[in-house]
Every structure is written in C-alpha cells, then in structure tokens.
C-alpha cells in the first residue's frame, strides 16, 4: 500500500469543512453595529466562558478531593440514540430537570476504554474521569456524536405527550387528546370508535379457543390476529413479550431484526449449529491481528458502535491490527492516517458470496485451513488437542441419491449401533451418535471418542440395509467451492483473482488471531448464503472462543429470567402462544393442512402463495404483507411500540402503506411512542411514553464484549408526558398493565411475581417489574455490596430510593441501589481471558459441533420451488423468491446500477430530531462514482432521480472516488416523512414548522416488491426472507434544476 495518497481534487470533503471555512461569512455586516454600541448582542452568562454551565464537579488539584456542584446531578443510565444501548453519564440541572450533557459511564465496557473495577466507589469513578493524575485520559468513557446529541429528544417539539385518538381517516395527520382511561376503555372494549362501523377491541380478540381459520387449525386461535410489534432490544422488550406471549397469548410478536441484519444472524446460526438462538460473534478487537470486514464497517456503524470504533482505533495505531473493509462504498471504517494498517476494497454490491467462496476454495486448494482444529470430531478430541471448540468437518453425511436419509448425517443407528443411554434418546436425534473415519486406523467410529478423524472422504459405508454413499462435511464444502473457478468468483464480485488469493493468504497467516465479520451489507437477495460463506472462513481457521479470534457476547446477569430473588418469566396462569407465525417461520410447511389438502388432491404442494421459512425466526418483514394478503391469515389489531417498519424495511411503504390505512384491512392500530413516525402515523391511537433517561430497562451488550454486563436504564429525570388519573405517568408498561388488569389477564395484578420462597408479589406498576429485575442482577452469583450513603448521594439514586423501598424487600434496597448507582452490573475486565482463550463462561459451544455442513439447512425445502437447500456454503447470484436470478428479471441493460445502503455514523433511524446532529450532518447526498458521473454528465450537487423497479426518488448527487463504479450508495437515517417532517394537527393546533427533518432520501422508499410472489411482498433473501436493502437494481437520471 502506498504512503503517497494525495487529496482528491474536485471531490468530496464530507462534512465539517464548511463550518470552519464559513465561520467568517456573516461577521462583517455586524461589525459596524458592534463597534458603535459595544457588543450588539446579549451578554453571555460569563464573559470568558460564555454560556457554558458551571462544571459538575471541582477537583482540588493538590488533594484530589472531588466536590460536586450542588446545583447539578450526574447519574449513570442508558443511552438510546441507536440500538447499541451504551451506558452513559447524564448531567442534569437540578432546578430545571434539564439534561445539560451526556458522556460515558466509566464502569461500562461499551463506553470506557477499559471499564473501572466494579467495586470502585462512585466518588472514585467520577474522579477517574478528571484531570487529577491525568486519570481521565486513559480512563475516558465516551458518548458518540449521536449519544451526545440525543438529549434533545426529551424536549423535542414534535414529542407526543398526551394520549391521542385520530380525527378523520387514518394517516390524515389530525388528532385529539383523550384521557388515558378513555383510551384504555376504547382499545379494550371496541365499538364504533370512529363512526366507521364497529371495531373489535382487545377483549373480544383475546380468544384462545376458537381457531382463527377452521380449515387450517394449525394457524392457532383468534388471538393470533393481534400482532404486537417492538422496535428493538431496548431493555423493555421482556415486558412486551410477557404481555404478548404469556398474558394475551398471541403468537405474533415481532421486531426490527428481519430488516436489520437477519441474514448475518441466520448465516451465523447455521455455522454455530443453533437456528433457535442465532448466536453470532465479533472479532476480539483487543487481540486480533488481521481482520476482514465484509459488509460491515467498524468505526462507522454497527453494534457496539463505540467499542468497535475505539478498539479499532487503538489496534490500528498502537496495536497489531491490520484490516481490510470490503464494501461498495468508502466509510469512516477507513483511515488514511493509519495508512498501511488498513485498506478499503471496493466490491460489487452483492458480490460478497463469490468473494467468500473464492477464498474458501483457495484455502482448501492450498491446504491453508487449520487441519488440526478441523480434524477433531468431538468435544473430547478437541479438549485433548487444546482447541476451544470443534466442528463437524469430519462427520459423514449420507449422499446417496434416492436414499431416504440423503442429506442427513450418518448416525450410529444407521450402522446398527445402539442409542446412548440418555434420557429422551431417539433414533436420528438425541443419543444417536454422529460417525466419522478415524484418522489413525481408517475405522468408522463415533464422533465422541478422543483422537482426530479424516477431513476428506468420499465413499460408501456398509449398513444393515446395504451400502450407503457418504462424504465428510469438509468434502462437501470442497465440492461446493470447486463448482466454480477462481475466475468465475472473481468476475462475480468484481475483484481480481489476486485480491481474493491475497486476502485468503493473509487471513490464514495469523493462526487463530484473524477473524472475518459481516453484517448489514449482507442484507440482499442472496443474504443467507453470503453470511454462511463469509462466516465459514472463521471455522476454517478454528478461531472461535480464542484470543484474537471470534468471540460472542457473554451477555448479562439474569434480570427478567428466573433469578436469585424473583421469577419474572413465569407467573400463575400464564398461557403459551400456539399456532403459526404470520411470517410462516419455524414451522415446516409439510405439516400444514394446506400441504395435506394439495397432496390429497393429487396436485403438487409447491409452490406456495408465499415462501415458508422453516430456518428463520418470526419476521416482522412478512407480518404486514401477510396481513394484507391474508396468507396465512389476516390481522384484526396491531399494537406497536416504537416500531417503524415503513421507514426501516425496504419496499414496505410501496407494498402496504396505503393498505394499512384501510380499517377493513387492519381494523385496529394502537401505537405506543413518544414520536409520530412513518408507521404509527397510520395508527388509531397513540399512547405517549417515556424517552431514554426517563424510562426503566435492562439490557446486555452485543457481541464482541468479553465481560458480563447488565446495563440499567432508570429515570434520572422526570418523564415529560401526561399522568393518568391514578397519578402514574402514562408509559408503555402502564398501558400493558392496565389492559391486562381490565381484561383480567394473567401476569398483572396483586400476586403475580414469585420470589425465591414462592411468595407472590404484585405487578401493578412498572417499578414492580424493573426493580425486582434489578434485585436479580444485584444478587446473581456473589451478591453486590450495599451502596454507601456517598454512592447514593453522588449517583442521584436518591431520587428513586422511595420507589426501591416500595417495591423491594428491605435487605434488597441498598444492593439494588449499588447497581443503579453504577448504571448496571459489570464484570471486571481482568476476568475476560483464560490463557489463549476467552474465559470459560464466554465460550460458545455446540453439542454436535459447529457446522461445516448444516443438516437443518440441507433438509429444509424451499416451498416456492420444492427443492432442498445446500447444506454447505455455495455461490448463488442475487435471486428472487421463485429461484429466478434477479438480473434475469431486472437486467443490467435496463438497470445498470446496483444500489447499496450504508449506516450513517451520525444519524440513526430516529435521531433526525436533534438539531445539534443536523447542524453537523444535515442530509445525505447519494454517492455516485466519478466514472459514472462523467458518463451521465452528473456533477456533485446536481439533482438526480434514483429509479428502481420499486419507485423513484430525487436526491442530490455526491460524486466520489469512494464508491465503486456501477454502484450507488445511500446513507441511512434521512428522507423522513414523519418525526417532524410533517406537521400534525393536535387538538386543532398544527405542530411547528422547523424544517430540515425531511432532508435527504430514504432508500427503503424505493425498495422492491418481489415480482415472482403473489399479492403484496417485499424483496427478501430467497432462503430465509430477510429484507433486501442492498444490491438493488437501479438507474440514475439527471434532473433539470427547477
């Protein structure tokens, strides 16, 4: 790599420069006035420091004594400016309850360089952030740009603070405030609520007995026609699940995952042999030596944003890390200042699958894989070999055509071995061993015995039923990789063969201290096999659970789950949801009534009206289209909490937005949110809610965090929304509690939370849940100490002590206060590693081994084609649901570009309301390459029309070298039509017109429908259904300036 990069003339300085260059612009005109009269303006609070508030602490330079400012309070709670959910310190003005500024919590692993020991008194924690002994430099704990700016959400002029009921048709933007109690009554009891005819309320719809469709009883009861949508894992989701699944009893709870990064999660789940929990990892940034980020941009975006960014910055400057970022567009994951330590590799959008398969092929061809790791067939062998995990590389798979077990692993019972003597042993399932060929003597043997096994094998095995053709998993991977030449792979991803080989060579030159990561860049029409193939590379070097390799998140301490003090997961009379998810997930189509009917009628059971997704979790991406199409069934009511799929899910606006406005399609829509967004603008009712630092919640961190952590969100300021008649603030939790109480649902009321002795306690206020979850956190393992008086006073926890005393047992109060005083509970960093591996508790394992070959994937059937999927990674083009290559339907001649979406390093999908963010980064001109711009006569600043088969949008062009020719890139977070972009009329008064909220474009507005599917649909991955917001076919037209 070169050291002589020069500035790109005529192309983009992205951000900032304007501010410092423009500072002079408006000064001259004011000068005369100023000279004549002294200063013409308003005098600042202090002539030297202007309007900065007084500091929150003062530290005596000599003694290090810390004196808090008596007018201010600092408290550790949780950010929610994006989905990372970092621990932050919030500084407030006591007199006004205003948030002055937000930075990081030094106890918190997502915010601190290296978190301070948990036992540290709060006073010393504050001191660790100061200049005293320069502690605050190494000990700094940060908030990102967005986290710094998020405080404006509290007093955002567009915030909803009263209970709203729509006036006029849905989506018209007119509302009136109603009493909270009226809202609860109308939502529960229904009636002719809008003069449009009768609407069934939540009481009538909570029918757990009547099948919603007698012809298809497996769909479950009527209650399933109430869907409850959540935005993200914000630490309040367990409360919603409690209501949805176990109190109300609907199957259909959904969140943003399927339009966020689901392809990565299912691809990772396929590798990790866990298609229920879908675990994934991140490189161990503290120790990795070479990392490849494919469709992932640490330091620019991703979760956890700060931890990744900080560790990347350190590793590329003072550490050992070299890395490449493989993306169609250049982002802040690149650093010219770190020079030779990093490099951007511009790839064709959607080309990642081919790159990964090329690398896999080269690694196998050149025997650069970790043979010692892959040869260990089971846990005993792995332990003996000193490995921290094992794979099924050596396990034998039945490959014989026509054999009923084709595609399944060969099991002990297939060759006449008895089942293991374990409870629940069952043929081809539990207790039926996998088989491999011993490396030493070539014998067929169970995987669980110590000693290595053969990696590659194609042959036959004698069984009581005769010989059966088999191959090892690794052999199948090799066959799959060899299905295409290196030149084919190179052509498909637009990179030279030498680049693919070079990456593979470097990746396999660091032992286990290398890692490859992928994320949102895989969210395209071939996302699953992309992620499956990319993440397979980690398995080939055996880096899981190792220092410098791939690490999961160890998670948090038990909070809602049955904990040492309370069981918040189970309650008397709880129900279990039954039936099929709207998204047709996790249920084999072959067990449906429809399948049987079609078979009995003598017709082919394939294709289905819409794909079934046996490998996928429930997916919000299919809920609303399913509801409109009525397949598998329609919806009678929707309750959403902060969810905004119409903004976040590519193509959904075009597919369903107008239809959801029709009460005949969706009779009732209740939204809980502090803001009116692109989805809940179509609601019938809006329940106001607490925002960020006003709310309760418990979260655990994302992958790549090497110590256990539970982050506490607690109200460090008073919520701004209305109170109910009973004096409590209206919140999401209160809404679900009061609906539960009114309908007499289990789980809410006087005796519903069991403590460790079985004594039942009430859940009638949010605090009843969240504080007891806090007790579980505080008492997990070795209980935390009691908070000192000084901890309580300095941390601001004093303001919630009355609530603690109301909800908790006396002995719990100070322990829970200890946790809140520190913003949660955090394991010390010193415990993170055990030798060359991560600590034992943080190792991910799979009883049957990580998957070179995934049997569940291999034996699942694509219900659109009736064909099975490949059980090993393979290369596919971007593909529509019925198997048609995307480019066959949308050819390059007509749609010469592929559009990529990338996450903003500043705006999240809901942060546009912050003026201090907008001033830095007000909109998102779309990136066009220099070559394409020249061809089309487009200059930076020109208005251009971006056209896809899903629609068109007018944007500003930014001509860059930082994008691959043939690609267009759109930064996410702009192009809002709500959240302040539209002025709603509430109680006859129009919201203010502040401008700027609608700036830029939202690529999702021109996302595609899938033309091979019936009814309304959005384009998704052809295997698992995750939304496609990447690699969308498009063309670009210059717009004449108006």
């Amino acid at each position, binding site marked *: 790599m070169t050291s002589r990069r*020069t500035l790109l003339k005529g192309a983009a300085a992205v951000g900032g420069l*304007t501010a410092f260059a423009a500072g*002079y612009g408006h000064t001259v005109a004011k000068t005369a006035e100023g000279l004549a009269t002294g200063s013409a303006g308003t005098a600042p609070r202090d*002539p030297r420091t202007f309007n900065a508030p007084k500091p929150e602490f003062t530290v005596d330079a000599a003694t290090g004594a810390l004196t808090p400012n008596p007018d201010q309070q600092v408290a550790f709670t949780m950010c929610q400016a994006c989905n990372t959910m970092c621990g932050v310190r919030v500084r407030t003005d006591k007199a006004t309850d205003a948030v002055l*500024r937000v930075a990081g919590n030094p106890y918190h692993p997502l915010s601190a360089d290296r978190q301070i020991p948990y036992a540290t008194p709060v006073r010393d924690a504050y001191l660790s952030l100061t200049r005293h002994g320069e502690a605050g430099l190494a000990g700094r704990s940060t908030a990102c740009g967005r986290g*710094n700016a998020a405080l404006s959400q509290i007093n955002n002029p567009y915030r909803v603070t009263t209970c709203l009921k729509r006036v006029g048709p849905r989506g018209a933007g007119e509302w009136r405030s109603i009493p909270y109690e009226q809202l609860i009554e109308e939502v529960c009891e229904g009636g002719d609520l809008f003069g449009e005819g009768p609407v069934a309320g939540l009481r009538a719809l909570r029918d757990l007995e009547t099948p919603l469709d007698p012809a298809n009883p497996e769909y479950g009861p009527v209650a399933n026609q109430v869907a409850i949508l959540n935005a993200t894992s914000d630490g309040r989701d367990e409360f919603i699940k409690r209501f949805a699944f176990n109190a109300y009893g609907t199957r259909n709870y959904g969140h943003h995952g399927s339009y966020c990064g689901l392809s990565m999660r299912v691809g990772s789940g396929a590798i990790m042999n866990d298609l229920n929990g879908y675990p994934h990892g991140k490189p161990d940034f503290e120790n990795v030596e070479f990392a490849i980020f494919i469709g992932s941009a640490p330091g620019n975006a991703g979760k956890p944003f700060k931890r990744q960014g900080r560790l990347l910055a350190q590793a590329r400057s003072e550490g050992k890390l070299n890395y490449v970022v493989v993306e169609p567009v250049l982002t802040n994951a690149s650093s010219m200042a770190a020079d*030779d330590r990093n*490099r951007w590799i511009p790839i064709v959008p959607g080309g990642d699958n081919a790159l990964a398969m090329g690398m896999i092929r080269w690694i196998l061809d050149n025997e650069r894989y970790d043979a010692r790791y892959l040869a260990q067939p089971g846990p005993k062998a792995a332990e003996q070999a000193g490995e921290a995990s094992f794979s099924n590389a050596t396990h034998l798979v039945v490959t014989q055509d026509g054999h009923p077990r084709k595609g399944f692993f060969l099991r002990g019972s297939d060759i006449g071995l008895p089942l293991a003597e374990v409870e629940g042993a069952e043929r081809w399932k539990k207790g039926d061993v996998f088989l491999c060929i011993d490396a030493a003597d070539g014998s067929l043997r169970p995987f669980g015995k110590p000693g290595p096994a053969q990696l590659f094998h194609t042959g036959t095995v004698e069984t009581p039923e005769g010989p059966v053709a088999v191959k090892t998993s690794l052999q199948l991977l090799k066959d799959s990789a060899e299905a295409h030449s290196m030149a084919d792979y190179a052509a498909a991803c637009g990179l030279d063969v030498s680049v693919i080989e070079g990456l593979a060579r470097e990746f396999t030159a660091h032992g286990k201290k290398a890692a490859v990561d992928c994320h949102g860049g895989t969210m395209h029409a071939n996302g699953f096999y992309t992620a499956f193939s990319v993440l397979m590379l980690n398995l080939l070097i055996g880096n899981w659970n190792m220092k410098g390799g791939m690490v999961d998140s160890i998670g948090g301490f038990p909070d809602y789950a049955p904990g040492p003090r309370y069981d918040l997961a189970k309650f008397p009379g709880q129900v279990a949801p039954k039936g099929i998810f709207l998204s047709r997930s996790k249920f084999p189509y072959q067990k449906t009534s429809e399948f049987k009917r079609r078979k009995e009628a003598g017709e082919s059971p394939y294709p289905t009206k819409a794909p079934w997704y046996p490998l996928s979790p429930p997916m919000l991406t299919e809920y609303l289209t399913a509801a409109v199409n009525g397949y598998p069934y329609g919806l009678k009511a929707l309750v959403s909490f902060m969810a905004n799929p119409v903004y976040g899910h590519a193509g959904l606006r075009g597919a369903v937005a107008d239809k959801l406005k029709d009460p005949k399609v969706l009779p009732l829509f209740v939204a809980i949110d502090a803001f009116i967004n692109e989805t809940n603008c179509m609601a019938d009712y809006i329940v106001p809610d607490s925002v960020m630092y006003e709310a309760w919640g418990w979260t655990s961190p994302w992958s790549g965090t090497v110590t256990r952590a539970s982050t506490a969100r607690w109200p460090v300021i008073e919520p701004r929304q209305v109170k109910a008649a009973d004096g409590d603030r209206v919140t999401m939790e209160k809404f679900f509690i009061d609906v539960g109480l009114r309908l007499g649902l289990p789980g809410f009321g006087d005796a519903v939370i069991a403590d460790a002795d079985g004594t039942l306690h009430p859940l009638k206020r949010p605090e009843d849940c969240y504080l007891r979850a806090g007790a579980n956190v505080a008492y997990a393992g070795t209980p935390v100490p009691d908070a000192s008086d000084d901890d309580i006073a300095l941390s601001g926890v004093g303001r919630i002590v009355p609530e603690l005393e109301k909800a908790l047992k006396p002995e719990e109060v100070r322990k829970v206060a200890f946790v809140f005083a520190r913003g949660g509970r955090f394991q010390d960093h010193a415990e993170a590693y055990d030798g060359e591996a991560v600590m034992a508790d943080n190792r991910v394992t799979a009883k049957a081994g990580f998957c070179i070959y995934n049997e569940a994937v291999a034996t699942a059937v694509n219900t659109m084609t009736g064909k099975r999927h490949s059980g090993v990674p393979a290369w596919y083009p971007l593909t529509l649901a019925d198997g048609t290559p995307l480019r066959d339907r949308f050819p390059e001649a007509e749609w010469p570009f592929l559009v990529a979406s990338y996450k903003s390093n500043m705006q999240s999908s809901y942060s546009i309301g912050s003026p201090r963010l907008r001033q830095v980064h007000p909109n998102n001109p779309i990136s066009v390459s220099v070559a394409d711009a020249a061809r089309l006569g487009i200059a930076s600043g020109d208005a251009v029309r971006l056209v896809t088969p899903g629609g068109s949008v*007018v944007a500003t062009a930014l001509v860059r070298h930082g994008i691959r020719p043939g690609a267009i890139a759109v930064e996410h977070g702009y192009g809002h039509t709500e959240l302040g972009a539209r002025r709603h009329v509430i109680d006859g008064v129009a919201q203010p017109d502040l401008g700027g909220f609608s700036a830029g474009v939202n690529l999702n507005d021109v996302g595609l429908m899938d033309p091979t599917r019936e009814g309304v649909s959005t384009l998704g991955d052809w295997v698992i259904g995750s939304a496609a917001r990447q690699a969308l076919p498009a063309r670009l037209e210059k717009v004449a300036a108006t």
Partner: protein
Amino acid sequence: MDTSRRDFLAGACSITAGAAVCVASAETAQAATPARRGGESGQRFAMVIDLRKCIGCQACTVACSTENQVPLGDFRTIVSQYEVRDADRPDQPAATYTLPRLCNHCDDPPCVEVCPVQATYQQKDGKVLVDADRCVGCAYCVQACPYDARYINPETQTADKCTFCTHRVEAGLLPACVETCVGGARVFGDLLDPNSTVSGLLRDHAVKVLRPEMGTAPHVFYIGLDDRFAGKVEGQAALWIVRDAQGAEIGEIRS
C-alpha cells in the same frame, strides 16, 4: 509495513523536538504580543490529536456544541472529513482522512495582536480567550486567524472560539471534546509537566501542526498529519443542499 510512511514524514516539515523546544519558542514569541494575563503561570496547556485514532464520529463536535451552548451552525471545534486518493496511483482505492480542528491556542496568536480592545488575550497558561465584556465584535481576530477557528457569536455579537473548556480545566476536569473522544485521539494536558501524557507524546512522535509557515507556534499538535492537510485543503466542500421532492433547492437547513 509502515516504513515508507516514516520516510515520508521524515522528509516533511515535522516537529520532532520535544516540549522544551516548543515552549522555548513560545517564550521568544511572547515578547511581540500583549502581556499575558490571568491563568496560572508554570502551566502550558496543549492538545495532541492522534489522527490514526480519529474515527470521525463528531462526538467532540457535538459535546463542545452542547457544553459551551454554541449557537447552532457555529462551531468551536469540528472534524473535517476528506476522501483521499493517491494521485500517483489512481488505480488504488480511496481512503478517508479525518481532521479535528479547533483553536490552536498559539504561542504567537495573530488574533491577540489585532484586537483593538484587548478582548482577545492569552492567559499565562497559554489559553487564548475572549473577554466578551470587552469585545466589540469587530471581527479583526476572525480575519486574522489562519485557522478559521473563530466566528462572531450571533447571540452575543462577540468573537467566540474554543477556550480549551477553561471552566472545566480550572475545575480539574477535561475539555468536553477530550472527555468524549471515542477513538481516544484527543489528549490534553500541561506541556510544562514533563510527566504529562502530552509531553510524552511529543517526545515519542514526530508531531506536526497546521500551517507551520505562519509562525504562530500552534499548541494543537497532530500525530499522523499529512502536510497536504496542514494548510488550505484543495477539496470540494461537503454538500448540504436540501431539495424538495421535485429536486428544487429549498436552501440550508434551519434548526
């Protein structure tokens, strides 16, 4: 792996001397400017920014804006971001270059000399400040600053700029931008303390400053500063044109 980089730096006008030399030059410079007033002598505050660690997240920008209640649209610090490619090797991919900017708290500050009312002054600890009670908003200092680090505050109608968060530093705290620097790029401290982190960084690294040819002896030092970014950058400014749905410009963002 990075030898070529080092060669390149060695040939450029890098400041390789340690703190002592910097401060010595400051002492000579001081004679030509109005007397320093306020602040403690025996300290010389400075910032070192390691550009390799900057991720361009603008946390510093927003924290400063919030802490100092800077009017919207004006900035005491900001991170300029550039897209760069090698002119000699145009086949190579571009890279991102981020450059945090703020007042350099120069030892020979041109802004101080031009102030007709001595509102802009330098403290004994090196911080260059504005006394809003004296400032008449003439903007001579704004013009004199080679770094575009000053603006006229539209609320107070006085010159405004980075103070190194003097209110925080005097209280024993760190500047807001340093506290919240996600990559750990910004380091602040006392150059007269040989044991300070900034002194150590100046000893260990070939730091550089912006516009060294101006002879202002800036006290914001950069690790990894490319000379082509040390002066006026020949780049195209960012595009913040906002358009309506038909593509018509609807002007600048209002906040």
